[in-house]
């Protein structure tokens, strides 16, 4: 068997807001609401969502911007991380064991496989919008088949086979969607898969929103006198429909493009997009998008793993890098993980940026961030339903925990 590299773009690191302080107003608990219902507030209040309707999920209050600290690194290694209810699960490459990390302690043990499964490799894990982790895997070295299962904190659900090589997401009702071989498939819980055809445009990134609407982002280009103009376009397919919307341009630039595009929904129905060079968009409904940035490249990241650089242009406090994961608890609470590899010129880094006011930087746009040491790994981070993250560093796994 040969484990496959899978980098799951959703990394949630819960870290200190800036230097560990809570953000203004961020610890307020908002109204209780069902998943998929918009957060009507325009501020930065934390929200409470029903993360898992009918499936035992918990009410998740975002802790992204509250007081917190990072645990010391635990010297454990693996190829994939999953975060759920304050625990981090580190899968081994062999597909037989994992290490469960909680409160600064690590316990290795056998993976409690779904029924009929004897190994889980090539793990991909992200939090579904129903509040439960969605795990994709291959088994027994068989790269021709991919499976999915859900973790409820105690056990995995029976595995289902999905279309091969598909990236999967789950909506607030627990419906799983995959775009891969054969196009878009929907896997309703306990029902036969639905082949929903292929998106009219090849996705550069895609996700599902809480109500089951499929959202596809693609990049188009046009030559202009100023250089190549890049357009980030959005189309969507409502749940139960086979009518794709017309495309809407949601961002443009000249010369830079949209590399490192990451895209995620939140349980409140909001959508979040990020790309290299600090680009960030959010939308409550997929129609109206707010454009901002998550970095001004200001040297403000907190050094969780200390680092120095002789060349100031590679100051490790500067928040840079390619987005690897975006995770959002609601419209106002999102976190972006980036990685940057410098080789010998500067220490490579992982950054965890959280959308927690007050923002900083010359234009007061940059998100507070923390910096970690980075070395090539499979899936370096994961974020749980409250925004608490785990990150794998060369020294081991750190967890973000709420301050007492």
């Amino acid at each position, binding site marked *: 068997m040969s484990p496959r590299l899978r980098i799951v773009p959703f990394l949630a690191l819960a870290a200190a807001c800036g230097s560990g302080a809570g953000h203004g107003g961020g610890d307020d608990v908002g109204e209780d609401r069902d998943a998929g219902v918009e957060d009507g507030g325009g501020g930065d209040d934390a929200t409470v969502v029903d993360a898992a309707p009918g499936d035992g999920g918990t009410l998740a209050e975002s802790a992204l911007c509250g007081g917190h600290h990072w645990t010391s690194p635990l010297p454990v290694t693996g190829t994939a991380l999953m975060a759920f209810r304050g625990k981090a699960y580190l899968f081994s490459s062999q597909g037989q064991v994992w290490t469960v990390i909680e409160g600064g302690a690590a316990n290795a043990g056998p993976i409690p496989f779904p029924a009929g499964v004897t190994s889980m490799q090539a793990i991909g894990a992200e939090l579904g919008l129903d509040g439960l982790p969605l795990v994709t895997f291959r088994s027994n070295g068989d790269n021709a088949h991919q499976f999915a299962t859900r973790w409820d904190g105690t056990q995995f659900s029976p595995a289902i086979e999905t279309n091969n090589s598909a990236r999967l997401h789950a909506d607030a009702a627990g419906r799983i969607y995959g775009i891969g071989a*054969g*196009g*878009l498939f*929907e896997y309703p819980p306990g029902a036969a898969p*639905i*082949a*929903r*055809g*292929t*998106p*009219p445009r090849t996705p550069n990134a895609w996700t599902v929103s809480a109500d089951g609407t499929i959202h596809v982002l693609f990049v188009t280009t046009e030559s202009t006198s100023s250089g190549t103009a890049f357009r980030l376009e959005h*189309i969507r*397919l409502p749940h*139960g*429909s*086979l*009518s*794709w*919307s*017309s495309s809407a341009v949601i961002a443009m630039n000249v010369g830079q493009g949209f590399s490192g595009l990451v895209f995620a929904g939140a349980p409140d129905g909001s959508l979040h997009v990020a790309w290299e060079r600090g680009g960030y968009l959010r939308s409550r409904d997929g129609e109206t998008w707010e454009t901002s940035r998550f970095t001004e490249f200001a040297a403000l990241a907190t050094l969780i793993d200390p680092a120095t650089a002789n060349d100031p242009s590679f100051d490790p406090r500067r928040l840079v890098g390619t987005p690897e994961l975006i995770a959002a608890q609601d419209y106002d609470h999102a976190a972006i993980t980036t990685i940057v590899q410098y080789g010998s010129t500067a220490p490579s880094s992982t950054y965890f940026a959280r959308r927690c006011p007050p923002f900083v930087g010359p234009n007061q746009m940059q998100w507070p961030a923390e910096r970690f040491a980075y070395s090539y790994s499979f899936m370096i981070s994961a974020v749980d339903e409250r925004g608490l993250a785990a990150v794998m560093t060369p020294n081991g796994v750190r967890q973000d925990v709420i301050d007492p």
Partner: protein
Amino acid sequence: MMRTTMFVAVVALGACGARDDGGALTDAAIGSDGNGSDGDASHGGGDAGGSGGDAMQVDDRGDPIDPVAVGACGGSADVEATLPLPIDPNSYGSYGDPPLMLSGDTTRVIYGASGTWMTAAHGSASTVAAPSALAGSDWFVAKRSLAGRVAAVWQNTDGVFAAVFDGTQLGTPIEIPCTAAQPYYTCDVRAAGDGHLWIAAGQTLYEQVGTTFENRGGPPIGAEVFDVDAAGTVWAGGGTLGAEEVFQVWKLAAGAGGWTKTGSLTKTMVGAPAQEIEGGFQIKTGTFAPDGSVHLWTDARCIGTGERNKLQLYIRSRDGVTWSVERLPDMTALLEGHVTWSIAAVWASDYDNARFVNMSSTPPIQDGLDWIYPPRQHNLIARCTDQNQPAFRRIAKTRLPGWTNRGYARFAGNGALTLLTTEGLTQVYAP
């Protein structure tokens, strides 16, 4: 009635080389005209242009090949006199489509520049004013759906439009969400039983809803065969080279929110014959039939300079689940020493009745560094029952003048064949 017209053969120099003659099904695009699928019988140079030498026109010294009915299983074809046309088939590009609209026994040739069309049936023709919507069109293609309805799509300076043709009149044009010009497969159209249109723009399907179109995305498989039946069900078939499932069949029922896979043809089902095909197994073209059956043909192609593969397969299925694999007869024997160059069009009315047109010639002759290519011909071949045994019989042949000239073959829904070459328009009616 059988009429013949004399032709002058053309010899060209070239080589059976690297150039394919229209692409295998797997890399062709959506293209099927209801119960028939058409291809470019002989795009420029056909298979010429390979490594063996330069293709070139030479003098007309080949033997004439008349359009002639050569017998069928229990019937004979009626090959009409060739009608001269004021258009040049060479102008339609390598994968273009001729401006033909076939309905029953009648073929219409659309002359967009003059705003007229020629109506031809059983060897007689007249040219009159075309519907005003077609005036000024610079390309035109029409396809018949499984529902039996003919829909046309054309482009003029205002955009790309489509309309249903009822055999006499063209319906109200509607602008379609497809801006690509020729070749036809980038902008294909089918009419459902109720007359509403489906558009295939590349691999994206659009369904007419009122006066607009909704984007339905693409089928789960790259659709090489696409059609719409009387119930409004969209059918798509295609495969992936190298995959175990070499051809999958999917359908989208009217109003459904998802596609259903009805079945697939696998390598295992094809079995040993696939291994025997010189140059390997490769599906060339196919079509759905109104009874729901699926019909596929493997290709004829160059397997080396001056060499053609001999074994071709015809594969059919009633339901997409169970498949029957048949070997086409040795074309060298069936076609009096000819080798085959490509399949130009296919047609099936039901599981048991299928026809195809291939292009053939006597083998090319090496002349030093060059290759001499003999005149080609179109052969209409029918699958039929002969003495209670399945058989393939050539029921008509016509000359395809010149090696570098283009020729097109198109089937109407009733199986009537129209051949468009630089010589003109020839209609073939077979029982």
